[in-house]
């Protein structure tokens, strides 16, 4: 029997580095050890990749879904629910937050899915290389108008966001730097793609047009030269502000909620020492992400940050679906299921702007909170789902009988979740109204119903919204 503290810590790791885990998985991972689990999460290639062919056999429209939801979301949700490489998928989601690119303008979910695949393949590699790759990504080029950035007529959109939202943060460059960076990326564009009618979507292909590139001398962040785009990125990643920007993003996503990105040049990190420690590893490893992640997950500041992060809608939905099970194979209705994060304020593949989603407490408003609670409650209240059955079997095996036991054991099985004394009292009061439950004979049906109702009540607590 695993130690309860170890289970709690492992559950914390799996919520943050993945999308939660069932109790069986937590116990297996505790037996394996915390550090070994971190290693397995980081060296993800040891685990099998998601099988895309099963998805396409059942939902062929998920490959080239065009500009309308939900088939693109079906594709993304299938990977999120089925991945055995949770940190790889979580990092892809992380970069989707940072390099936020949206279907509202791109109008090609297939191109956004290709960008997510880019994050899967490169998201845990070298950040400098990732920046170069995303700068050449046609979807990003279209999103930020670099196809309209010409040697004779500069468009600053990509150059500005590269510095403001993708690498340095506001306050760490000048307007001249924006102009000079943009000049360096002139000629970075894409070929005309095959149009969508009559046979569906075709992809863009990156193209560098030397005749459209501004070959003149540029002055950028104190450096002078005939810079091209890659030179700009090489200078950017050497800036101390770059390490701070990336590591603060990591801290916000994986450790504890920070203020929104536009406030970062006026509000200090909530834990400057933690961000500095991550920066040190980032610089020493020359922008390699795996050493930074390894340091993060093994640090005390991470281990002590339980429930200091408000779950994103994607974490709520995916974590719930992985817990309750039964969604491994695509099924009719997967489209509606895959849109659930959108109803809670996180329209995957379609962030509200290049700034990405505002996180932390901004996920919550009266509408989104109701959507979160209703979705989770509907899943946990369905005893036909294999994961719910498993929890109920465990409650039964634990001899759950009294109201206190029902509350404590349900909290344990769903997390373990730590709740305030006030919340605990409210849950216990509800359980007391039901009285003791019995798993014998005719009582079993009532016990199952009460267990499901208790889990639904827990899903409605303030504490359940934190991960």
């Amino acid at each position: 029997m695993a130690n309860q503290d170890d289970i709690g810590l492992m559950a914390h790791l799996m919520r943050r580095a993945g999308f939660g885990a069932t109790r069986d998985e937590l116990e297996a991972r505790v037996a394996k050890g915390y550090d070994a689990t971190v290693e397995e999460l980081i060296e993800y290639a040891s685990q099998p990749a998601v099988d895309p062919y099963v998805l396409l056999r059942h939902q062929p429209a998920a490959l080239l879904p065009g500009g309308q939801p939900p088939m693109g979301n079906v594709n993304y949700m299938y990977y999120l629910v089925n991945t055995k490489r949770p940190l790889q998928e979580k990092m892809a989601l992380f970069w989707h937050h940072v390099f936020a690119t949206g279907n509202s303008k791109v109008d090609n979910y297939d191109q956004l899915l290709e960008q997510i695949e880019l994050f899967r393949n490169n998201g845990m590699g070298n950040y400098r290389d990732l920046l170069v790759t995303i700068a050449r990504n046609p979807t990003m080029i279209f999103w930020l108008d670099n196809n309209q950035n010409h040697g004779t007529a500069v468009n600053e959109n990509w150059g500005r966001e590269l510095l403001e939202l993708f690498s340095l943060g506001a306050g760490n460059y000048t307007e001249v730097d924006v102009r000079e960076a943009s000049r360096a990326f002139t000629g970075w564009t894409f070929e005309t793609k095959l149009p969508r009618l009559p046979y569906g979507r075709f992809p863009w292909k990156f193209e560098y047009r030397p005749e459209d590139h501004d070959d003149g001398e540029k002055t950028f962040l104190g450096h002078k030269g005939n810079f091209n785009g890659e030179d700009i990125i090489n200078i950017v990643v050497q800036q101390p502000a770059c390490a701070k920007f990336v590591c603060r993003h990591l801290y916000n996503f994986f450790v504890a909620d920070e203020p929104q990105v536009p406030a970062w040049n006026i509000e200090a990190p909530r834990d400057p020492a933690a961000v500095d420690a991550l920066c040190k590893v980032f610089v020493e490893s020359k922008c390699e992400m795996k050493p930074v992640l390894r340091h993060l997950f093994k640090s005390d500041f991470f281990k002590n940050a339980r429930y200091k992060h408000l779950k994103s809608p994607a974490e709520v939905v995916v974590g719930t679906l992985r817990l309750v099970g039964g969604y491994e194979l695509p099924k009719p209705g997967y489209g509606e299921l895959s849109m659930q994060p959108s109803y809670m304020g996180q329209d995957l593949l379609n962030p509200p702007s290049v700034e990405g989603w505002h996180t932390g407490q901004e996920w919550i408003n009266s509408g989104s909170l109701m959507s979160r609670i209703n979705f989770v409650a509907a899943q946990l209240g369905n005893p036909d789902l294999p994961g719910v059955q498993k929890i109920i079997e465990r409650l039964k095996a634990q001899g759950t009988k009294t109201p206190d036991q029902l509350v404590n054991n349900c909290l344990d099985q769903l997390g373990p979740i730590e709740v305030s004394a006030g919340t605990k009292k409210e849950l216990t009061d509800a359980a007391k109204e039901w009285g003791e439950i019995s798993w014998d004979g005719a009582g079993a049906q009532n016990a199952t119903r009460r267990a499901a109702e208790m889990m639904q009540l827990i899903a409605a607590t303030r504490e359940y919204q934190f991960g």
Partner: protein
Amino acid sequence: MPLTTVVRGRAYDWSHAIGRGAATGTGFNYVQTMCLGKENDLYTANRGNENNFGMRVNRIKLGGPGDEELVSEFFQHGQGDGKATWPFGVAVGNDGRVYCSDEWTNTISVFDPDGKFQYKFGSTGSGDGELNRPAGIAVEKNGNVIVVDSGNCRLQVFSPEGKLLAQCGKAGSGDGEFNQPWGITTDKDGNIYVADWKNHRVQKLSPQGRFLMKIGTYGELPRADDAFAVTYLGPYVSSVLPTQYPKAGLLNHPTDVAVDPDGDIYVTDWGNHRVSIFEADGTPLTNLYGDAQEFSKWAKQSVDANPDMMKAYRRVRNSEPLYRFCFPTAVDFNPATDEIIVADSQRNRLQVYKKVRDYQDFQANL
């Protein structure tokens, strides 16, 4: 890409394309399987999707290039008799009855040739006569119906009215075992060919279901250094012709199989985006990669109605991705016309090749 492929006494000539993307009417929406009926009728089972709900079976009257006409549509999305959730298999009996499988409701619906619902059979489960995700269907000469019971990894034979007559196969990778099989066909002698999807092979069985032969081994085509991905799962277009790829006979999730009167075997090599052709004994012959350099009749109507599309086409540097198969799901051979018909699923069209029997080589010094 060559429009004519010549190999060991055979020539395959690309003829024309049929269809376009359409949730209803003159086009297709992710064809899963298809079947030739009488008098050049072709039935296709369209999976549709949760955006446009284009699930249906459509009946097309085939002809020469540009002669195709839509005859009828049935088995559309919905609940109740004659409706479908996830259409998959379609097959036509000698008496004109059309059998359609629904992969979600685990039933076989039967229609008359005009698409009028007659009756249905099948229920969910793994017991005798029960179905789990039924896929392809074939009708034997005697009128009995072979259903690929994909989730149960077996074939089940029913009378036309749905009475279970026989079954064969079980889950596994040994001879006569299956892993999520997809399409099925029979040859002139009644032998049965099954696309054993997750085992990456085609199996040939006797009319009684005894294992006779298997074709293909798993393999993904190697990618050239300059390969350009048309989708993130291929096909990959490069300056190196795909015919130069080594190891003919590799299969990656084959979905369907057809046999011509000479015994040559055609396999839709879905994950490798091609049709692989084998001699009757399984010896690899060649591959077709898709050559749709001309729009189909209905496709041209879409382009003509949208001038910006043609404007864009005129600025495209390399149109090869347009020609190529993208996850072909089904193949049929029409003995009346010597045509190989391929369902090019992700492009929502059919590509038609002719097997040219009297091909004369041209003067090589032209």
